[in-house]
């Protein structure tokens, strides 16, 4: 056996390896790029769904943007308040968690509610159906119901019901916005999670024409506008629009709406209760109540009539003694 060959091969290959290893070690020190360590920390705190809901390509890009100050600490729609708090802690700022949002379909025009103009036989896709005179429904602003939104939803939050209407599960929705982008009718909107009243109609046509096509459409009658005690709903372009900043979820508009185009989750409605020990009988709550649900004499304990109370929370805000609870 030629011992020299073994020595030669081991030495030269080992030498090469050592040389390259040393070269790489040197290069990684010499050419080290200073990366802000917070980028890595922020990235770890993110949910790593890489959904792009924040508007950046992936979680790492968002983390970089947060550290450079381009993106807000609560910019991740998936992680929610918990994630925002973690990121804020890393960045050393106040989380002031942005209000979480959910996507909502602004249409109630299911089969039977909204008329069908023709029978559609074709590809099961809203995008395709939309190309054929805007889908089979008579309303040009209605949900087509083939579930292009459900197809793109990475979180299985969208269900197409039997009546050809998309429904978004608010518990699963993380507000990534993919359905908002894909909907050819542009009727999916982002709504604050704590908003329980929405105008579930997107039709911008004049009232009479709308009424012919759909039973539950906004006919721009303006009853809601007049009924709202908070100036939070207005009819613009033949469609009622709620200002979510002003809306207090009192749901009066939904009660008054003649076509039921305003949809409210009445089970989420709150009721005011007055804590008797704290009430000093100042009558402020009685004065501010928009529906006259509070009764009481000066310097006497006041009472809320739960039948009349709409849960707007105005009395809670105004009470100088914190004597009113909303629940």
């Amino acid at each position, binding site marked *: 056996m030629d011992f020299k*060959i073994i020595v*030669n*091969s081991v030495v*030269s*290959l080992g030498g*090469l*390896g050592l040389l*390259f*290893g040393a*070269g*790489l070690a040197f*290069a*990684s020190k010499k*050419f*080290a*790029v200073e990366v802000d360590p917070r980028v890595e920390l922020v990235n770890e705190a993110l949910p790593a769904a890489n959904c792009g809901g924040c508007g950046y390509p992936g979680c790492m890009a968002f983390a970089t943007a947060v550290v450079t100050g381009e993106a807000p600490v609560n910019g991740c729609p998936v992680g929610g308040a918990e994630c925002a708090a973690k990121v804020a802690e890393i960045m050393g700022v106040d989380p002031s968690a942005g209000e979480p949002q959910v996507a909502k379909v602004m249409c109630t025009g299911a089969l039977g509610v909204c008329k069908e103009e023709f029978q559609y036989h074709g590809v099961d896709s809203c995008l395709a159906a939309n190309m054929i005179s805007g889908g089979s429904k008579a309303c040009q602003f209605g949900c087509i119901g083939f579930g292009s939104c459900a197809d793109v939803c990475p979180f299985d939050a969208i269900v197409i019901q039997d009546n050809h209407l998309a429904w978004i599960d608010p518990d699963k929705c993380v507000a990534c916005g993919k359905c908002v982008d894909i909907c050819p009718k542009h009727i999916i909107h982002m709504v604050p999670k704590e908003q329980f009243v929405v105008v579930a109609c997107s039709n911008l046509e004049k009232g009479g024409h709308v009424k012919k096509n759909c039973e539950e459409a906004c006919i721009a009658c303006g009853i809601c506008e007049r009924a709202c005690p908070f100036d939070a709903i207005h009819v613009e372009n033949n469609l009622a629009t709620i200002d979510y900043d002003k809306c207090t979820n009192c749901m009066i508009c939904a009660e008054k709406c003649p076509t039921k185009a305003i949809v409210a989750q009445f089970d989420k409605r709150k009721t005011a209760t007055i804590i008797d020990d704290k009430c000093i009988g100042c009558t402020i709550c009685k004065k501010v109540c928009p529906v006259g649900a509070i009764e009481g004499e000066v310097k006497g304990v006041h009472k809320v009539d739960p039948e009349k109370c709409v849960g707007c929370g105005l009395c809670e805000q105004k009470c100088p003694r914190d004597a009113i609870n909303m629940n």
Partner: protein
Amino acid sequence: MENASIFVIVVSAILVNNFVLSRFLGICPFLGVSKKVDTALGMGMAVTFVMTMAGIMTYIVNELILVRFHIEYLQTIAFILVIASLVQFVEIVLQKVSPALYQALGVFLPLITTNCAVLGLALLNIQFKFNLPQVIAHSVGAALGFTLAIVLFAGIREKTELSDVPKPFKGFPIALISASMMAMAFLGFTGLV
């Protein structure tokens, strides 16, 4: 091949002996990174860069170390070592020196670390007994051939994506069929040099 002129080597490497379509090397990135023309072009650039560097480096290592100590049988393992560390080195330097280029090529570089096209090129260079200018010509030609093939293929895939392909052929099956047809088309260049 020893006395072939530079021009003949380049044309041969690009068209006649195209690395992907007639030598069947580097099929992995050819199928993996060819969904969009943009990324295919980026991959092509990265491969061009690495192949040229690797061709030169492996030639030097072969001449100075392997041939001198008569251990040519260690070519494969030595070349893998050279290529892997070279790509790593290039990645580190690029990140520091030219962040813009790193952004463009960065994601593709680690993919090429153990690419058989690069290793195949290094081994073929030695097999053909090329000298240094010929090695450079062959490396650049081979890499350009790879870029040409992957960019053309990406263009075809972008079109097939939109066309009405029968369901069983959707995705990779139709990609493989079009790749085979491209390879047959490139057979037409046989005899050019």
